[in-house]
């Protein structure tokens, strides 16, 4: 069981508090949606939880051990990162990218010989990109690239997956496919945190929503609890109506 926690972290940049005293706990068994307006600090919070951004005050704890004391390899084995825009700087093949996900495991001599190639094949199969494995990543569509990066994360077998806007700008069918894949990753041993912009997608797939505004957590709980017209108006400055369809909240934004 892997637990990730931030305790009273503050992240300041040029005297401005991007993250203002946040405490949050992430664990397996849930798909957490991190929502909020632009500039709320969602990406920064995600990066702080991953250890990419060092908090100015406070600490992040992985399995109750401070990130500062942990080796990069230990963190890499427990946390997976899907970056915004699925960046890839060289035209390498899909298979190469997925193989990169196994980097944290390359020095583990205890693992069986075919371990990496098995992991790569399995994760490509579960994301449905096995046919694309010899294609150059730079020639793929946005959705295919995200699937590739997702396969990469899966190949690394990290129990907690942190995704930054995984479905932004993708076609609806791609969005649904990816959200379904993310949801399928949730189990008793693994969890997902995703930064999302689409409130309806967030409402539909996430078991827990965290709304951020101005560097603080505004609300944290089940979608039904968190998605109220009041919260939305305060955080986004919009007037919204919440309807329910089959027990799922649907947000209709009024002009």
């Amino acid at each position, binding site marked *: 069981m892997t637990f990730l926690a931030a305790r009273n972290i503050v992240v300041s940049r040029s005297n401005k508090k991007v993250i203002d005293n946040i405490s949050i706990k992430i664990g397996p068994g849930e798909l957490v949606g991190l929502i909020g307006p632009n500039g709320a600090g969602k990406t920064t919070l995600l990066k702080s939880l*991953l*250890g990419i951004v060092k908090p100015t005050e406070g600490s992040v704890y992985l399995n109750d051990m401070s990130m500062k004391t942990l080796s990069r390899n230990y*963190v890499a084995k427990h946390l997976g990162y899907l*970056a915004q825009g699925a*960046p*890839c*700087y060289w035209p*390498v093949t899909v298979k190469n990218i997925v193989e990169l996900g196994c980097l944290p495991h390359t020095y583990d001599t205890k693992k069986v010989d075919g371990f990496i190639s098995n992991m790569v094949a399995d994760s490509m199969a579960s994301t449905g990109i096995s046919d694309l494995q010899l294609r150059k990543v730079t020639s793929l569509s946005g959705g295919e690239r995200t699937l590739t990066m997702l396969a990469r994360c899966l190949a690394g077998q990290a129990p907690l997956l942190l995704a930054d806007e995984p479905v932004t700008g993708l076609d609806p069918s791609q969005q649904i496919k990816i959200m379904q894949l993310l949801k399928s990753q949730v189990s008793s041993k693994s969890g997902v945190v995703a930064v999302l912009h689409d409130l309806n997608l967030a409402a539909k797939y996430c078991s827990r929503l965290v709304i951020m505004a101005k560097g603080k957590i505004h609300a944290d709980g089940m979608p039904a609890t968190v998605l109220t017209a009041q919260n939305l108006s305060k955080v986004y400055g919009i007037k919204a109506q919440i309807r329910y369809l089959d027990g799922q909240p649907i947000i209709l934004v009024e002009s």
Partner: protein
Amino acid sequence: MEHDNKSPVAYFPYPGLLFLLAALVTVLFIMSVFWGTVSIPAITLLDVLFGDNSPSAIILRELRLPRAILALAVGASLGMSGAALQGLLRNPLAEPGLIGVSGSAALGSVIAFYSGLSVTYTLALPVGGMIGACFSVGLLYYLAGRDPSILTIILAGVAINAVAGALTILALNLAPNPFAAFEVFFWLLGSLTDRSMKHLFMALPFIGIGVCFLLSTSRGLDALTLGEDVAFSLGISIKSLQARIVLGIALAVGASVSVAGVVGFVGLVVPHLLRPFVGYRPGRLLIPCALGGAALTLAADIVVRFATQGPELQLGVLTSLIGAPFFLVLVVKTRREGR
């Protein structure tokens, strides 16, 4: 960046590539030792082994052999440094001269020489070059700050090159030797002519250490394909990676420049040519580029012996004549592909 989705060269087997390049280097090395303005019979090799002092043996042992080994080492340094730098900066237009190493090494060598240090200690020249290169690395870290980003490194490199160039000219003006500017003009253009075993023994250890540093970055460079943040999340320490690359380049290129002058564009041309053969994977590019750089430099060094009737053509001039148009084509191509 690429024209088709399934380019056949992506399937080129890695061991096969290494073998071919190694074979090419071996052939060129043998040619370099036995070809020259004076023809040496192959039997002389035995003379060399038995310590004979016939003129042919002396030429082989004291002139050809150090020259060929230096060409190999310098070429390997430049090729691998170019590949590493392009992997780090994720830009195919990067070159070791870019981060100011060549310029600072040249400055260090010029100061060591014209101050008279190398009169007392002949080897002060290479040492000065490496100190100059290391100094540029230190300055680079200072300018780039605690959290070095790629853009800052490039800008710092431009600044260092400008300062090093100006200080070199100043040093030449202040030198007591009135012919200093004339003499060093040829040296700066890059040359392996009339180098001796001494140069070899001084430069080779540092080139070796630098190459080792660079080889250790292979995995990190592959991870950098996904960007710094993702690479970090995969367990790669970006700072350590940058430090090893910059230090490795400073040592390898610094030592090379101090002995051979500025031989440009090898670190640009070779990675670009070999990249498709390794499937564009930056980590895999390191060793092939070392071999490719060695091959290119050996070949160029053979050509300069026969290009002109009089004094030999400068090695750096030849590599620039090949490399500069290549660079321009690359710039046009890159712009057209909108990267």
